[in-house]
């Protein structure tokens, strides 16, 4: 059955369908053809083809048996390494089906595991190395401990270039009988920040409103998807009403389920629209960067964000 969700419907299913990452594809393809792959580590931003490439490898290797020989786990969802270990164990216990001697486990967002959990994972990788190959994906390879890195072949995925994204968009536009202006393509590319999945989601979301896609349409969808309420929070803070700013912030974070880091990201962008002196904008950016650092270091993002808001109150008074 063909999926109605475009990120699935248009997910490349062969090496030659993939856009971007040409060097990686070449090397992976020859590894796959030899029917023997090492453990792989895919590092790179979201929506650049890591999961897709893993799926293609599996389909090429196992052909129609791929579902029996493939396990996909997401490290940020599984509650602890024990869950991972348990699932891996159960999966690895039985032999692979077909003429490839191993199965494949794809562990997405492996950098979400703590260093301790990664140590445990490393043991698991070793214990089952005869029956299983691991493909790990992560955003930053620096968050993967060295012993794991040294056991994997590392591939760095880059953000998709504009021409690649354009290619993806025009393909879908033709197949779905849509029309789109060049400016709208540009805007979707900007809004997707090189993330192909987000780009396709944006396209599908806009097309559900109308089949002729214009910049106006894209910009409404984009502003809907952005945590626009962050601007309101900052307006309260700069005007000196800390209490209101604080309340609104909690409200937004809970309702939209956005993380502390996402809020910082949005705040950083909003600074340039604030009615304050240039030197204060620089100062606020510095504070924002510090807050982002502290969120990573600390335990409660909301406290860090309140501290940041207090700086915006001072900024509103020209300090």
């Amino acid at each position, binding site marked *: 059955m063909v999926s109605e969700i475009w990120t699935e419907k248009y997910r490349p299913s062969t090496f030659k369908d993939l856009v971007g990452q040409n060097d990686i594809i070449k090397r992976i393809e020859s590894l796959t053809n030899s029917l023997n792959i090492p453990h792989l580590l895919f590092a790179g931003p979201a929506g650049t083809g890591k999961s897709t490439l893993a799926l293609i490898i599996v389909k090429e290797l196992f052909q129609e048996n791929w579902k029996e020989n493939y396990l996909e786990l997401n490290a940020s969802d599984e509650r602890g390494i024990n869950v991972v270990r348990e699932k891996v164990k159960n999966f690895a216990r039985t032999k692979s089906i077909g003429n490839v001697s191993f199965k494949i486990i794809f562990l997405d967002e492996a950098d979400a595991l703590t260093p301790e959990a990664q140590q445990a994972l490393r043991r698991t990788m070793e214990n089952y190395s005869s029956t299983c190959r691991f493909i790990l994906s992560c955003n930053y390879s620096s968050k993967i401990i060295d012993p794991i890195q040294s056991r994997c072949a590392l591939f760095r995925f880059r953000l998709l270039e504009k021409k690649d994204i354009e290619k993806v968009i025009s393909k879908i536009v033709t197949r779905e009988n849509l029309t789109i202006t060049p400016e709208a393509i540009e805007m979707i590319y900007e809004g997707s920040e090189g993330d192909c999945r987000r780009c396709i989601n944006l396209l599908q979301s806009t097309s559900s409103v109308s089949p002729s896609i214009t910049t106006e349409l894209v910009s409404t969808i984009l502003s*809907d998807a952005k945590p626009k309420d962050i601007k309101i929070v900052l307006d309260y803070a700069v005007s000196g009403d800390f209490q209101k700013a604080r309340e609104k912030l909690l409200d937004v974070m*809970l309702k939209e389920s956005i993380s502390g880091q996402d809020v910082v990201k949005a705040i950083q962008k909003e600074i340039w629209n604030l009615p304050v002196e240039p030197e204060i904008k620089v100062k606020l950016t510095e504070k924002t960067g510090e807050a982002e650092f502290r969120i990573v270091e600390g335990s409660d993002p909301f406290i860090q964000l309140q501290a940041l808001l207090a700086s915006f109150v001072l900024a509103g008074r020209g300090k």
Partner: protein
Amino acid sequence: MQWTEKYRPKFYGEVRGQNLAVEKIREFAKHKGGLKKAILLYGPPGTGKTTLAYVAANEINAEIFELNASDLRNKDKLNEILKPAIEQKSLTKSNKIILIDEVDGISAVDRGGLNQLISLIDSTKYPIIITANDIWNKKFSSLRKKCELIQLKEIDYKTIKDTLILILRKEKNFVENDILTNISVKAKGDLRAAINDLQIIAGMEGSEGILDERNKETDIFSALRLIFKGKPTNDTLKIFDSVNMNTDEIILWIEENIPNEYEGEALAKAYDLLSKVDIFKGRIYKQQYWRFLLYERIFLSYGISSSKKEVKNLGFTSYKKPDRILKIWLNNQRTAKKKTIAKKYAQYVHVGEKRALKEFPLIKSIIISNPLIQKELKLTEEEINYLSN
């Protein structure tokens, strides 16, 4: 007397919520010298491991010889204590059961102890019952092979509640139904904890219970007043000693009330310190280095107090109870549907749930626009309703 002791079951029929384990241990105790000479009862605290051992002994009129983690030191000690016990007959009773309680308390220091125990199992004349919370540690692998394994599950809250009601009836005491439910759920399968809680609550006259909660609040109120309105002195450092709350709770109270007292520079300074408190908290979690707690407490008391240049607001301030945790909880209840939808979507399109939640507005508009997608994702009626509202 502690109710957990007073109402500890003496016969199989009195053991609650562990029917399967009771059957198994009854079999084991009946034919002495069956297939295995020892059984290993394992399960979370308060599920009846030790109790079952005593019940088994009582039912066959056996004497119990008990060793627990504090006795189990090393090989020599075991030989000295346990060896005679597994060879000599009971003086007072016709039968004997050896109970080795909390075997997972054997630490690395007790090296050799575990192996000695295993070899004693081979030579024992009497059945051995061993209890443990978690037996899946590698160091127990050979012990597991020697023993018959019996798992004790967490006791479900209904059984816990029924047991509490039974005890209250015998005590001729009364506790409100809501509170009983609360205790039973909170116990998370630990019957002993539930009975202990019950005894404490039943022992309080209605008003005293509320009084206690009130005392707690007066403590934090006066501490907050001294911090926010007073000058920092060395006494300020000790201010939370008399407050019956843990540091994390205090952090929330401070966080909630800074804007009630401070503004401008003082506000920024106080929150900056609170941010540093949180950083230390993060470091404690990551490194398990608890000494950092000291810095948390200093910043929370003296630090916050010193954030102001002068006291402007000497009048009465009514401090607010922190409600962020409650808001988060309520929100989670409200967005439970959103999470289940995100989960279905995430699995279907090979992304993480967190990522799906983050992009939810986009995803939502895509799902709403196309009933075929709703079908594809196998969304329930309620989930679809949630999306369209």
